[in-house]
């Protein structure tokens, strides 16, 4: 019996068995295309089609949305998403494309929408048939999210939205957007409201999606312009003026600190990839040379590799310890570190990989001599997307200092 299975409830144990059998028979074949490192880096419809087909088949099998009620398109189970995630990761499946939908929109809609809206939106969100994006950041509102200026003006049963959202991952594929808007200019926090917006249906009719080019030269995120877009009041989540509270539900789940476990499949990208950073870095160190000897025989590089291994395994052990209440004096202390720790770990791992590559670190995608096809140069640059997006590392440290340590608040 695996370690994870030891304390399963009867329902979890039966479900785990089911997941294993299904994954044995149905784990998808290797991707015909280069898959992105994360779902927010999906560039092409070839990538999207492959990943969407995988999410749909996992959903149809009951491995996605296990803990949501049946009437919302879920599995109606209790604490089984964690089991499905463990088994999908064990099986090394590809990742899901609808990451914003699963991780942020679904719990927000579930906790704050009226029943008919939940039942209308959640099934196709969970299946991945409808991709979601998130309209939070604006050109003038990054870390200070509550300063958003995109305005929704009430006209009877309708709202008219004008404004400008940026850094919107997946907007070019998205059917729906969750959006934080201002409905009252007099109050900063209480002047915010939260909606879902059918952006694909409104393309060219009040919504414009423009791709932004990242520092990697790749596309993948966008700016979204709203010009007198009219939406129905039934698209509103929670009360008018409660948008900040709703946004906190979104952000809690984004930071891995929400009530619902996000469906997450394994991190398989291509056939040769090893699990975790340290495996790949160790292979790289064996194949790289410094000053006439293998990098893996260089004392400084050995020390850095071991530092990385200790951090990476420590991160995993923190997730294990987080579930032992007696070994946590503050219940949110480790959960709120998740996003900060994993994004900085990934950044430092990529940087170490480039150091190991040495001269070859100059080679990028499309160069036949680039180690691992230029993957580390790409992931190092992309890592800054993760330390900036969803609350910069600096904002994350404020949150930890204030909510966990109780230090005086920034706002």
């Amino acid at each position, binding site marked *: 019996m695996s*370690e994870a299975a030891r304390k399963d409830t009867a329902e979890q144990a039966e479900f785990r068995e089911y997941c294993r059998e299904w994954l044995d028979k149905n784990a998808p074949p290797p991707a015909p295309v280069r898959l992105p490192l994360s779902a927010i880096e999906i560039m092409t419809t070839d990538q999207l089609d492959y990943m969407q087909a995988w999410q749909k088949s996992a959903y149809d099998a009951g491995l996605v949305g296990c803990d949501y009620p049946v009437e919302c398109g879920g599995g109606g189970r209790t604490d089984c998403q964690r089991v499905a995630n463990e088994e999908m990761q064990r099986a090394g499946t590809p990742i899901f494309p609808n990451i914003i939908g699963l991780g942020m929109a679904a719990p927000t809609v579930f906790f704050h929408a009226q029943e008919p809206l939940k039942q209308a939106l959640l099934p196709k969100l969970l299946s991945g048939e409808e991709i979601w994006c998130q309209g939070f950041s604006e050109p003038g509102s990054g870390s200070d999210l509550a300063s958003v200026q995109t305005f929704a003006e009430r006209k009877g049963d309708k709202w008219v939205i004008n404004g400008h959202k940026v850094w919107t991952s997946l907007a070019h594929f998205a059917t729906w957007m969750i959006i934080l808007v201002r409905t009252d200019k007099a109050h900063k926090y209480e002047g915010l409201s939260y909606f879902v917006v059918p952006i694909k249906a409104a393309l060219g009719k009040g919504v414009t999606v423009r791709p932004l080019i990242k520092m990697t030269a790749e596309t993948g995120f966008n700016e979204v312009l709203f010009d007198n877009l009219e939406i129905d009041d039934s698209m509103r989540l929670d009360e008018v003026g409660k948008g900040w509270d709703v946004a906190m539900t979104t952000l809690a789940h984004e930071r891995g600190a929400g009530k619902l476990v996000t469906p997450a499949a394994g991190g398989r990208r291509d056939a040769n990839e090893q699990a975790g950073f340290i495996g790949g870095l160790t292979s790289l160190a064996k194949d790289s040379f410094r000053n006439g000897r293998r990098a893996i025989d260089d004392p400084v590089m050995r020390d850095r*590799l071991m530092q990385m291994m200790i951090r990476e395994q420590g991160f995993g052990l923190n997730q*294990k*310890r987080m579930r032992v209440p007696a*070994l946590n004096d503050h219940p949110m202390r480790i959960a709120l570190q998740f996003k900060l720790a994993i994004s900085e770990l990934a950044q430092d791992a990529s940087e170490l990989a480039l150091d190991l590559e040495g001269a070859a670190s100059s080679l990028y995608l499309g160069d036949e001599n680039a180690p691992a096809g230029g993957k580390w140069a790409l992931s190092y640059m992309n890592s800054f997307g993760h330390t900036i997006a969803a609350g910069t590392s600096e904002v994350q440290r404020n949150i930890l200092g204030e909510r966990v*340590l109780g*230090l005086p608040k920034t706002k």
Partner: protein
Amino acid sequence: MAMPKNFGFGEEEQMLRDAARRFFEDRLPTDKLHKLVGEDPQPAKGPQCFWEPALWNEMVALGWTGLAVPERAGGIGMGCVAVAALAEEAGRAALPSPLIPTLQATYLLAACGSESADAALSRIAEGSAMTLALTNRQGAWGGAASDVRVSDGRLSGTAWYVQDAAKVEAYLVRAMDGDSEKLYLVEKGAAGVTLAGDAIVDLTRDQARLNLEQADAVELSDNAASIIAAAEPALFTILAADMCGAAEWQLQTTVEYAKVRQQFERQIGFFQAIKHPLVNFMMEIDIARSHTYNAACSIDCAEPGAAVAAHMAKSAASDMAAFGSGRSVQFHGGIGFTWECYVHIYFKRQNHNLRLMGDGPYHRDRLASITLGSEAA
């Protein structure tokens, strides 16, 4: 044996931990500790040994010395996870006592499996304090010859850097019999046994050279190297746990000060130059603490990865302790630099423990030998 999801930290371990925390809060609050160890500041006072034998007797009565002693030798036979929890609380209290070396000695003796070692374990269960005398002048506790030699069953030479040497009844001595490395038990009061105290920075322990001249000794094992290798994961894990507990005290104490101290019309904890490093310290503690409980759990499950886990724990804890100790003094400002502020007691204990039995780079070097293989010449 499969590793449990909760690191083996169950109800009994929690009861022990909570009882230890209450005991130290009640019997050794920080102001009392400061009176005990910091009454008389003098930079070159020579060897010192501050502790409260009455407190030690209470800990013996609570059964803590016999915590990890196997039941066959009259102990409680709890696992290393329980020992780590107790060591963590001792660190949080910056406890001056022979508890930590006695817990370490337990693992060394348990690895021997000899009758003489089991007899020593029984004494520990009854309350005898013991410590390790393995280290040579260069600071090596293995991998290099001891400075103690055996001749006709008697020991001569010096064991260096013996922890809490003045507080214990007996020493576990590593000695060379020709080329072979053996382990002996030496009694404190025996003929030919003298202690030369070291003048050290840390106020919460004493340290000495153990000088032996034709001293009586009882052989515990004729293969010290393999016994030390077997016990090392626990020796490192206990020190890592002590550092985690002390670090949490440093973090919480510094956070409280940052909420109270005002400069520029604000609590200094508002400023990100203070707030962010405190968060970094917290995150380093959490990594070290998770590694520590994982190492303890690996030892209890007799996992082949226990050595790797313990090297990771000691490395993470040592680096964390170095960083956090510096911040705890720095963020207390001028007062933090004075004798009257309590942070120096923990600063000194952490600086001692972080290098004791190897600092971060030392343990990463050994870790690399295991996981990456030896360096090519």
